[in-house]
C-alpha cells in the first residue's frame, strides 16, 4: 500500500534505566488520517511519538515513513516531513522571543525574510497569540507557551504532524479552536495528524481513529464508536466515556429509557434523545 504515511512494525523500546515502555507495537497510518493515541499516564504515548520522530536510540522493530525505513533517513529529511510538538512546551521553546522562536523553522527552510515574517504572523494568528511577538518565550503563561510550540510547527507547513497533547493547558475555547484548526489542516490541506490526548470528550468529535495504549501494549484500536462501545473495561485502561455518552448510558441502563445506540457527541445525543422521546410517546 503506498498511501501509508507511517507504518510501525513490532516496535519495542526500553529506556536506559530499564523501564520497558513499548512492547511489540504495530500501527499503520494512512495519508490524511486524523489519529488519536489514548492511554493512562505512563502508558507510552510520548515514547511512541518520540520513536516515530526518530528521537530515541536503540529501538527494536521498524518504523517506515512514507515507505522508507526511518533509520535510513537523516534528521533533516525527517524534520522536513514530520513535525513534533512536545508535551512540555519548555522542552521545545528556546529562542529569546516569541517571534524568533516561531521564525526558527521557516528560516531553516531557507525562506526569505519577508516570507518568514508572513508565515510567523499567520501562525501566531492561528493560535491566538497576535501582539505578543516581542515577548520573551520564558515570560509567557503556560497555555501561551503551548500555543507557541504549535505555532512554531504550523509556520513550517509539515505534511505530517505528531502532537503530544496539543490541547493540554489550553483554555476551554482554545481547546476547541485548536481542534478545529487541526481538523481544517487535516481536511483542507490533507495534513496527516497523529495526536496523543487525554480529552475523551473531544475525541469523538474530531478523530477518525484511535489507538489505545496500556502499559506499553496496544490494548485496542478503531473508530471512537468501536472503542467506547465497551464501557465495562474502560477502568482498566484508565479511560472513561465522554460525558455525553455517560449520560445516555445511564439513562439507558439505570433509567430504562430506550436508546438504540450510545451517542458520543452533542449532536448525536440530541437526535437520540428526540428519537427516544418519540418512541416513548408512541409506546403510550
Amino acid at each position, binding site marked *: 500500500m503506498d498511501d501509508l504515511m507511517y507504518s510501525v512494525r513490532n516496535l519495542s523500546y526500553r529506556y*536506559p*534505566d*530499564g523501564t520497558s515502555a513499548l512492547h511489540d507495537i504495530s500501527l499503520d497510518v494512512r495519508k490524511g488520517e486524523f489519529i488519536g493515541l489514548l492511554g493512562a499516564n505512563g502508558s507510552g504515548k510520548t515514547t511512541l511519538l518520540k520513536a516515530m520522530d526518530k528521537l530515541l*536510540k*536503540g529501538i527494536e522493530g521498524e518504523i517506515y515513513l512514507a515507505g522508507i525505513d526511518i533509520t535510513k533517513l537523516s*534528521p*533533516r529529511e525527517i*524534520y522536513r516531513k514530520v513535525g513534533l510538538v512536545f508535551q512540555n512546551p519548555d*522542552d*521545545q521553546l*528556546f529562542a529569546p522571543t516569541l517571534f524568533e522562536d516561531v521564525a*526558527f523553522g521557516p*528560516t*531553516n527552510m531557507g525562506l526569505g525574510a519577508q516570507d518568514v515574517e508572513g508565515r510567523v504572523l499567520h501562525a501566531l494568528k492561528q493560535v491566538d497569540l497576535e501582539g505578543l511577538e516581542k515577548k520573551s518565550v*520564558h515570560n509567557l503563561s503556560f497555555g501561551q507557551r503551548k500555543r507557541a510550540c504549535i505555532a512554531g510547527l504550523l509556520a513550517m507547513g509539515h505534511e505530517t504532524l505528531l502532537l503530544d497533547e496539543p490541547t493540554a493547558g489550553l483554555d476551554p475555547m482554545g481547546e476547541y479552536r485548536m481542534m478545529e484548526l487541526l481538523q481544517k489542516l487535516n481536511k483542507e490541506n490533507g495534513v496527516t495528524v497523529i495526536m496523543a490526548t487525554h480529552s475523551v470528550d473531544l475525541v469523538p468529535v474530531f478523530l477518525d481513529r484511535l489507538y489505545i495504549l496500556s502499559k506499553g501494549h496496544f490494548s485496542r484500536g478503531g473508530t471512537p464508536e468501536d472503542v467506547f462501545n465497551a464501557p465495562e473495561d474502560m477502568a482498566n485502561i484508565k479511560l472513561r466515556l465522554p460525558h455525553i455518552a455517560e449520560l445516555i448510558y445511564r439513562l439507558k441502563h439505570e433509567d430504562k429509557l430506550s436508546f438504540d445506540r450510545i451517542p458520543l457527541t452533542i449532536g448525536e445525543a440530541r437526535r437520540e434523545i428526540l428519537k427516544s422521546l418519540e418512541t416513548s410517546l408512541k409506546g403510550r
Partner: protein
Amino acid sequence: MSAYNCFSDNFNKETFLSAIDARIKLVVVLVLIIMVLSYKGVMFPLSVAAFSLLLCLSMRVPVRVVALRAAQPLFIAAVILVLKTFFSGQEILFSLNLFGIGLSAHADGFMEGIQITSRIIGGVSLVVALGFATPFIEFVAALSWLKVPKAFIEIMMFAYRYLFLFLDDAHTIYNAQKNRLGYVGLRKGLHSFGVLTGSLVLRGFEQSQKTADAMVQRGYTGDMPILKGEPFRTAELAGAALIMIAGGITWMI
C-alpha cells in the same frame, strides 16, 4: 543521546552488589585504589581489574557499555605504553624503521610503561565497578558519613538532578542549530557554540530561581536533608574485611 545512555546510574540493577552498604563499597574501593597505586609490579593491579570486571559482568552491565567507559583511559594507557617503550629507557629491545625514522624499543622503558598501564587498568575498573554498583543517592549518603561537608554534598545533589535536564537541553539546542546549518563554517560554528553555552547558563539561572521557590515552599531553610545511613551489617563488614585482607595479601606477595 550517547552521553546520557552510558551514565552508570542507568544500569543500576537490583543485584547483591547494589544492596551492599555504599559506605562499605566506597571504603573498600578507596583502599584497593591506594594499594593499586602503591604497588610495584603488574600482578596486583591486573588481578584487581579482573575481579572488578567480573563484578560488572555479574551485574549484567552490557559489555559494550563497560568497554565504552574504559575506552578512553585504555587508550591513554596504550599511548603511555608506546611512549615509554620507544622514547625512554636505555636497554634496546629491538629497533625498527618506520618511513625512514629509526625507532628503538627499550626494555626498561617498556617495563615502566607496563607498570603505569596496569595501574590505570586496575584503578579504572575499580571505579567503573563502583559506579555501576552504587546508586547516586547512596553514594551521597556514604560521602556524608565520610564527613564530606554538607554544603558540598548539597551542591552535588543539585548538580546531579539537573545535569540530565541540561544534557537533554544541550542536545535539543544543538540539533536545532544543526538543522539550521548553524555549524557550517568556522565563524558560524563558533557563534553557535557561544549561543548554546549561553542558553544553557541562562536556563541554569532561571531554573535555579524556580527550584528555590519550589523548595522554600516545602520548607527549605537553607539546608537539604540528607539520608541518614543505617547501622552497618556485620556480614557486610566481615565481607569487606575479607576482601581487603585478601587484597593486602596479594599486594604483599
